[in-house]
């Protein structure tokens, strides 16, 4: 502390100009980061508010009067509304199942020692690394055999296999943070294992559970490959709808970007909620 204050005294004594210069560069750098991160997103939203003629103008138009026609048209003429509803059904069901099945598994991994625990752990990591395309063919063939193509349930099941590891990873970490003494005390009071899990450990691990639920939702909401392969019309999700405009020569850019904005906006809200835990989720808890 003494060192720090001595340092600041030296800086105060020095002429003010260099410090202000350093601050100016810092500010320029931070604004550059902001522009870099926001610009493509801004461009998408701006294009979604333009008419087709404005969207295709060359050079691009920067000032225009925004209108919501594209949103009206994609929601009610292009059937994007039903694909958004499909996406919500699929993402919510997956999330509920992943949390419901994943939290007991995480609790077991955090509390008990059992045979082949390490192998199980390793399997969960492989799942994060696995390219979805590796298992796409077998899953497609199974879904076709079971007559599940173009149903919600097949996407829910597939996304569940990818989301369970995320939930298990984040929640195991959380359960480890819950003191074992609480378990012991409850046991002495006569509580069963399940009661301990349900009434004591789970409420205390809620922050981790919430974060993993949001990650699970975002993954299912954004996924394209399986949705493309396994759905046709009935269970078509929003990302597939967005890419379906891409055929033909004269692309409706305003409508494509309106659909894109509808897909991205809710995720940004969720991601901002968990922004502190974003890295933890993306690295499966390796970096906090």
């Amino acid at each position: 502390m003494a060192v720090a204050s001595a340092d600041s005294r030296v800086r105060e004594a020095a002429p003010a100009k260099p410090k202000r210069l350093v601050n100016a560069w810092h500010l320029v750098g931070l604004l550059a980061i902001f522009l870099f991160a926001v610009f493509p997103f801004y461009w998408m939203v701006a294009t979604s508010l333009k008419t087709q003629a404005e969207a295709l103008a060359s050079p691009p138009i920067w000032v225009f009067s925004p209108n919501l026609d594209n949103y009206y048209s994609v929601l009610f003429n292009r059937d994007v509304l039903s694909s958004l509803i499909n996406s919500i059904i699929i993402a919510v069901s997956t999330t509920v199942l992943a949390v419901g099945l994943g939290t007991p598994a995480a609790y077991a991994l955090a509390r008990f020692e059992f045979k082949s625990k390490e192998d199980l752990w390793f399997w969960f990591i492989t799942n994060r690394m696995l390219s979805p395309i590796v298992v796409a063919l077998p899953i497609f063939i199974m879904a076709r055999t079971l007559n599940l193509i173009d149903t919600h349930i097949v996407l829910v099941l597939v996304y569940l296999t990818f989301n369970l590891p995320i939930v298990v990873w984040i929640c195991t970490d959380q359960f480890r943070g819950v003191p074992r003494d609480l378990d012991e005390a409850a046991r002495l009071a006569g509580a069963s294992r399940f009661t301990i899990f349900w009434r004591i450990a789970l409420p205390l691990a809620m922050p981790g559970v919430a974060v993993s639920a949001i990650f699970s939702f975002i993954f299912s909401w954004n996924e394209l490959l399986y949705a493309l392969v396994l759905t046709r019309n009935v269970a078509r999700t929003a990302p597939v709808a967005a890419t379906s405009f891409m055929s033909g020569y004269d692309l409706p850019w305003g409508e494509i970007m309106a659909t894109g904005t509808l897909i991205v906006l809710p995720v940004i809200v969720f991601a901002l909620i968990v922004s502190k835990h974003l890295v933890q989720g993306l690295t499966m808890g390796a970096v906090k």
Partner: protein
Amino acid sequence: MLYDPSLWGALGRTFLFLVTVIPIQIALGLIIALLLHKPGLSGFRLLARLSLVIPLATAPAVVGLIGRLIFNRDFGVANAVLALVGGGPIEWLGDTTNAFIAVALMDIWQWTPFCALVLLAGLTMVPTEVEEAARLETKSRWQIVRYVQMPFLLPSITVILILRTADILKMFDTVFTMTRGGPGAATELVSVYIQRVGFRVFDQGVASAQAILLLILTIVLARLYVKYVYREI
């Protein structure tokens, strides 16, 4: 399958993509992390940090669509910016090399924030006393990064290298919506290639064999992750 030049082409392209994109992402990510770590201007720092969430939250499929809009030859904003500095309009997505660069740029946009946030987490692990002591010793920003902060950044860099490699092996959505692997096969990374063989050419046997190859690569990566990143359990 092993003698199929188009598979090796796809793997080679994926490797080229890896070695192009990851160093840029780590370098840019480090600059961003250092700017976010530097004391002062806390309001702007918070704003910049929160804005990094946007690329990460954008669905990869939508990233590809945005890329297709931005890099359009006639009305894309990339060529408009080039025109400001006197550059002629570039045929981005119709040219093999430029399409590869355009896809790489979109990947850099989406994933540099991830690298920045992971590196920032590493930077915050450096004890403040150590960092302040080093500031008194030297004026050189680079020496502080190299000798004081780097040891704390190495685990973060390991995480980035392994996870980014896995993600690029997986990469499908962005490429599919932006170029469908084209023009020709110029941007056909390995996942896009296997998807084409399996679902558009419908040669399921070959596609499965290729998928197994990818699986082996994945297991190697996962082993490395456990070995170097996780030491617990």
